[in-house]
């Protein structure tokens, strides 16, 4: 019997971040309403950061923790992203190169909005379960950034769309999936998936996003319910509260997760508001901590919530975490796995929280500089040289850390440099 699951998770939550309350005030958003959205900080991609640097910087500490022999058994590298840099060549090829992985490895990329990370994880789990290459491992890297150049024009954009700027983050989450799932022991076959065509949010043109906040929220809630009901059909005796000691949600922003949890608790368990509040604090909040500091990182968000749950949960005995993933368009899934104290101990070696604490805090002036000085590398850029000194303080804050950054684009070919 093979037990597949996650052997290690690491997060790269940005080199720089912005306090989003400061942004909300600057944009004249209603601050009382903004408080309810439960956002705190968001990672901001610098011009010399892209989905490749985020992915490599997330995976590098995991790769460094492996022996050469272990590293060479990574035979599947899937990148999961809606921030692709090329319609043909996948991000995974660059990441494979900069991580120095074995060439006997499948490299490709998958897309389904914010569901992509879960799609990657599930494909990896099935690769391990199939035992077509016993002992092989998979590296799944969900990496997404948002330059939040909102698609202009059109009536369908609701006014709530202005709230997408503070929520849109940048980040990468890397998962090592194999047969020794110390960190997250997957419940095999316990998957409720649900998808259908809906036009809620999308990236219809390079470097821009569009969407209907109401439709997206309703679809998220429909899927939250339908995926759990399907999970329940497949797994006898499941109870929304008792079966899962923690819940990790795809977190576009905290307020949405709080609303979804409240709706599920009321509908499935007829719970009253004080009971729901206590349950939210116990089971959901541990998974929201990192999400509130990085922002929505699309395909990687539910995995960021899982990493946050593992770091902030209390695992005196093995506990089951239920994960809800939703990607606009749409596809969604509810699945679960077991986390133990040993797994939490292994995870803490990656010091995810400390890395978030050590990011550079951007001033609003610096943040706006990033978009006005033509610093942004747009989709399809043929030649460019990036200025690492655009914001001088940034490099000082990450001194001593080995990081990959984009140095140059030469005839569409991206060239990166390790900086420490």
């Amino acid at each position, binding site marked *: 019997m093979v037990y597949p699951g996650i052997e290690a998770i690491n997060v790269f939550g940005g080199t720089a971040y912005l306090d989003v309350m400061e942004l909300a005030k600057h944009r004249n958003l209603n601050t009382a*309403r903004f408080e*309810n*959205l439960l956002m705190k900080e968001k990672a901001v991609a610098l011009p010399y950061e892209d989905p490749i640097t985020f992915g490599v910087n997330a995976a590098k500490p995991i790769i460094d923790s492996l022996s050469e022999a272990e590293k060479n058994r990574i035979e599947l590298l899937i990148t999961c992203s809606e921030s692709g840099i090329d319609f043909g060549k996948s991000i995974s090829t660059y990441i494979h190169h900069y991580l120095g992985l074995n060439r006997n490895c499948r490299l490709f990329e998958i897309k389904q909005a914010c569901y992509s990370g879960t799609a990657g994880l599930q494909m990896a789990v099935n690769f391990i379960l199939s035992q077509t290459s016993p002992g092989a491992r998979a590296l799944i890297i969900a990496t997404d950034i948002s330059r939040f150049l909102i698609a202009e024009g059109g009536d369908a954009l*609701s*006014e*709530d769309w202005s709230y997408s700027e503070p929520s849109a983050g940048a980040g990468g989450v890397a998962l090592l999936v194999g047969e020794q799932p110390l960190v997250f022991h997957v419940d095999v076959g316990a998957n409720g998936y649900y998808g259908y065509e*809906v036009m809620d949010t999308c990236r219809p043109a390079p470097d821009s996003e569009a969407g*209907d*906040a*109401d*439709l997206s*929220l*309703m*679809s998220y*809630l*429909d899927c939250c319910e339908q995926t759990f009901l399907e999970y329940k059909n497949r797994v006898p005796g499941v109870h929304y509260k008792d079966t899962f000691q923690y819940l990790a949600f795809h977190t576009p922003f905290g*307020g*949405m997760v*709080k*609303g979804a949890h*409240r*709706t599920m608790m*009321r*509908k499935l368990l007829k719970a009253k508001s004080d009971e729901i509040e206590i349950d939210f604090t116990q089971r959901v909040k541990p998974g929201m901590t990192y999400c509130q500091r990085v922002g929505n990182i699309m395909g990687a968000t539910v995995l960021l919530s899982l990493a946050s749950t593992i770091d902030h949960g209390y695992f005196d005995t093995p506990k089951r975490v239920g994960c809800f993933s939703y990607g606009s368009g749409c596809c969604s899934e509810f699945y679960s796995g077991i986390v133990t104290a040993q797994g939490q101990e292994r995870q803490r070696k990656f010091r995810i929280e400390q890395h978030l604490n050590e990011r550079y805090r951007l001033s609003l002036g610096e943040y706006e500089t990033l978009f006005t000085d033509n610093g942004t590398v747009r989709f399809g850029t043929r030649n460019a040289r990036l200025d690492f000194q655009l914001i001088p303080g940034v490099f000082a804050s990450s001194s001593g850390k080995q990081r990959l950054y984009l140095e140059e684009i030469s005839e569409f070919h991206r060239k990166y440099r390790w900086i420490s």
Partner: protein
Amino acid sequence: MNKQEVFEVVVRTTREVLPDLEEHNFTFNDRLVDLGADSVDRAEIISMVLENLSLSIPRVELTSVKNIGELTEALYAKLQSA
């Protein structure tokens, strides 16, 4: 259930989510967004109205309505075909 009763369920539920509207005199032309409901509030109101009416339909089928009157009409139509 007639249309007026559906409207009353919508009003009661909206007041439950937004207690500040206790004194507000609701009309068919009211828009939830103008009454101070953000997108999370609106989704919550829709979810609770569906529960209160014991209607089991996808929420996304109710996103095209423009005001409380249209919401009432849409819900009433769903109840007739339920």
